[in-house]
């Protein structure tokens, strides 16, 4: 069987790639995609913990489903904001949107 550590290391690596994408990319849509990667890494961890540490308590899967719902809500609002931003400023580069930093 697969050791638990493999899942945890894979999830950590996936989370870090998403983390890099959020920090380094300029395009707001790609930043939201990277956030999805990070949420997926968290979901892998949740399900792996459920399977290896407490397989007879379904709460781990319930939590993962709530994460799905939150991810869907986040992506719907986030992309709506990006589209609204594009309509008003003709750019979706997060470097250009610095009005609140002045």
């Amino acid at each position: 069987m697969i050791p638990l550590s493999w899942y945890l290391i894979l999830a950590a690596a996936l989370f870090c790639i998403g983390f890099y994408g959020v920090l380094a990319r300029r395009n707001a849509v790609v930043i939201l995609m990277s956030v999805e990667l990070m949420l997926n890494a968290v979901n892998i961890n949740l399900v792996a913990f459920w399977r290896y540490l407490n397989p007879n308590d379904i709460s781990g899967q319930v939590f993962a489903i709530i994460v799905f719902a939150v991810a869907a809500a986040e992506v719907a609002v986030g992309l709506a904001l990006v589209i609204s931003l594009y309509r008003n400023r003709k750019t979706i580069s997060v470097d250009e949107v610095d009005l609140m930093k002045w």
Partner: protein
Amino acid sequence: MSTVQIVFLFVGFMILLAAWMMVSRSNLVHSALWLVVALFGVAVLFVLLEAGYLAVIQVLVYIGAIAILMIFAVMLTRGDVESLTHITNRYAGWAAVMGAFLLFGLVIVLGQWPAFQTTSPEAIESANPVLDLGMAFVSPDGFTVPFIVASVLLLAAFIGAIYAAFPRKKGE
């Protein structure tokens, strides 16, 4: 090395490759398609973890809905050429260093945790996981409140998305 381990290594490599291609491609449609590959790999991991219902949801919700939403957003914001030529900001090097540092730290911290050494899972006693999920969500002593709160969250997100994305007439 067993077959399952080989499948895991193949899928894990595929996920990491797809994730890296996603954050490093300049073509946004390619990014979105690599995201689909990574999400599908995660669905395979759910199957390996014997969470079949979650694997189905992963394909249905993530690939079927969220990835499509991403592609629609890419299509709607196509006029912004500038963010395609300079894909990373000036802190990209620092971001890579911090990402590597975070991975290193996570592996070290996790390695000191006793449960990290768990090699094989116990058997699942339940015969029907979807039934358990249903009981957990809607039975009076289950997660009833999170269940209803999830619908309120979805409602808020839906109204917020329409409000933000729908063009309003002047003076409204």
